[in-house]
């Protein structure tokens, strides 16, 4: 009862505080972040229904599983993209302390990315798609997303070039991240005859977006946040940022080799993929050390910054565990030979995609949308509860999937049992995944509500 009282839902969650001068780009970034958080809330609900479909036989559904899963994966890609676009505009102007080159283009870009994202989800709901995992929408819609990314790249490059002598490492890193998001999506707007090329270009989004381009945009955001909140001195952050970013780029590109093992590529990629994947871990280690040092020496006082930090710390945790350690383990070719194509990959994907990237984008979106407010103690506690539920749900989901995957590895891959027999054996763990998913969804809706309330408190009055 005491716990419930502690997290009581009555009372005001945020109070308005005096806001510093804001750039137009920062105002525009709010709509990106708001849309990203809304899509994130929708994603959990869609994913939860999909996971239920797997464990309740003959569950009636207006959208068949194969297209429901496609919507889930599409959302998983696009909500962090939309949030990142907002974050990059916001933190670039904050870093450079001036307006972006064209706020008008940023507004156009928002409507373009929203139009094509909604078109992807809408057509998939109508069972129209292109059947490429994570990129299931029709290719024309990805042309639209590319157009939005091209506009963002142009706008950011022109912003940096306006005053070449004052380009900060964080703003440059974020700009390069956005350019890579564009360049890596571009080949996915074409339909290939060759199924190997199809797989390859898909991984330029599935792997390289997450483990390289988004790493750069996140690094820029984290660097800015650490400087603003006093967790790290600017000089130290700027000293290491380009080195971290370079390792993320080289490690990210050639680490993609671990996705090339069994798709018809020469055996040399087994060595390239497994060895270079180690490089991918180094920037994560550097980030963890910097965070540890900052937390040891500085006490963050603002509840708003503390809640942002909780979200960021969650990301650092999954960066280290689910993405790096588990990821590195399953890239060992002898391990991957047996575990690839089982639920182990799915467990890793949830930890790496949402755990590492999702939490960073949520942190950024919350920070942006709550600017000009400060959560009351109650509001802060509700936020912390939501973060706990998200973490509890994610760990439960991923653990269940990993156990199911280990069972598949042993019974199916090693002992050679029939696939369907093994599928029935792992059913209890798929049910456990649903329970984890329900907890995650609850945390998601709670956090989204928290962010919505902060947005409402800080909304501009016309």
């Amino acid at each position, binding site marked *: 009862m005491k716990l419930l009282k502690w997290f009581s839902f009555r009372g005001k969650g945020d109070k308005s505080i005096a806001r510093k001068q804001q750039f137009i780009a920062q105002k525009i970034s709010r709509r990106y972040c708001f849309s990203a958080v809304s899509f994130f809330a929708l994603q959990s609900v869609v994913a939860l229904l999909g996971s239920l479909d797997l464990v309740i036989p003959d569950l009636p559904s207006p959208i068949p599983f194969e297209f429901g899963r496609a919507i889930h994966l599409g959302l998983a890609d696009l909500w962090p993209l939309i949030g990142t676009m907002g974050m990059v505009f916001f933190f670039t102007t904050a870093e450079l302390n001036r307006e972006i080159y064209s706020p008008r283009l940023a507004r156009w870009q928002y409507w373009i990315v929203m139009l094509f994202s909604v078109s992807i989800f809408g057509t998939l709901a109508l069972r129209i798609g292109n059947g490429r995992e994570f990129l299931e929408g029709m290719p024309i819609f990805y042309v639209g997303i590319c157009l939005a990314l091209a506009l963002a790249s142009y706008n950011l490059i022109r912003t940096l070039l306006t005053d070449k002598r004052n380009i900060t490492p964080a703003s440059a890193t974020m700009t390069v991240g956005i350019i890579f998001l564009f360049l890596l999506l571009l080949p996915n707007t074409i339909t290939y005859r*060759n*199924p190997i090329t199809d797989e390859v270009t898909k991984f330029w989004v599935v792997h390289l977006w997450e483990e390289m381009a988004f790493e750069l945009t996140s690094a820029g955001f984290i660097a800015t946040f650490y400087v603003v909140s006093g967790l790290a001195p600017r000089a130290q952050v700027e000293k290491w940022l*380009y080195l971290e970013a*370079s390792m993320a780029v080289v490690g990210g590109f050639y680490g993609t080799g671990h996705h090339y093992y069994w*798709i018809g590529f020469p055996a040399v990629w087994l060595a390239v993929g497994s060895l270079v994947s180690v490089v991918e871990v180094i920037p994560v280690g550097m980030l963890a050390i910097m965070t540890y040092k900052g937390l040891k020496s500085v006490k963050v006082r603002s509840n708003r910054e503390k809640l942002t930090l909780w979200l960021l710390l969650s990301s650092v945790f999954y960066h280290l565990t689910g993405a790096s350690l588990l990821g590195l383990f399953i890239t060992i070719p002898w391990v991957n030979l047996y575990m690839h*194509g089982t*639920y182990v990959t799915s467990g890793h994907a949830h930890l790496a995609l949402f755990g590492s990237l999702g939490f960073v984008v949520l942190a950024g979106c919350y920070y942006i949308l709550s600017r000009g407010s400060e959560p009351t103690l109650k509001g802060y506690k509700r936020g912390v509860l939501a973060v706990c539920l998200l973490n509890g749900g994610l760990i439960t989901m991923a653990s269940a999937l990993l156990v199911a995957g280990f069972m598949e590895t042993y019974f199916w891959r090693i002992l050679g049992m029939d696939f*369907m027999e093994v599928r029935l054996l792992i059913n209890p763990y798929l049910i456990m995944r649903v329970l984890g998913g329900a907890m995650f969804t609850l945390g998601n809706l709670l956090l989204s509500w928290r962010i919505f309330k902060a947005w409402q408190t800080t909304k501009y009055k016309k």
Partner: protein
Amino acid sequence: MKLRTFLILSILSFGLFVGVTLISARLPFPMTEQALAGKLVWQRHNCVSCHTLFGNGGYVGDDLTHVATKETPAYLINYLVQPPVMRPNKLAHHPALNEMDAVNLVHYLEFVQTIPTLGWPPQREKAEKDS
């Protein structure tokens, strides 16, 4: 490290990576028109949501990379045209295809199994012996 170094390293990494990837992605045999039509059937019906090829895709159904070595084309076509109930469901059937789509899809699956996968999946040899 300076911005210029970071940019040069990024551009060189990107160029080299794209080059070596495209060289590595060559097919061992040219793809027939029927197999290509089958690939589009695979994509149109979003088969990847439930099945994997090369281990990539959904985990609800079996991996189909080497299904053409385990089952005869006639069996596969019949399965796709008159699909059975999918366990553990009692009513829901596997999605059905028309005969032409089914034939094309089987051609595609026959083509996919010719792509060398460096010994993956590990139970392939056992399956081949059984068949």
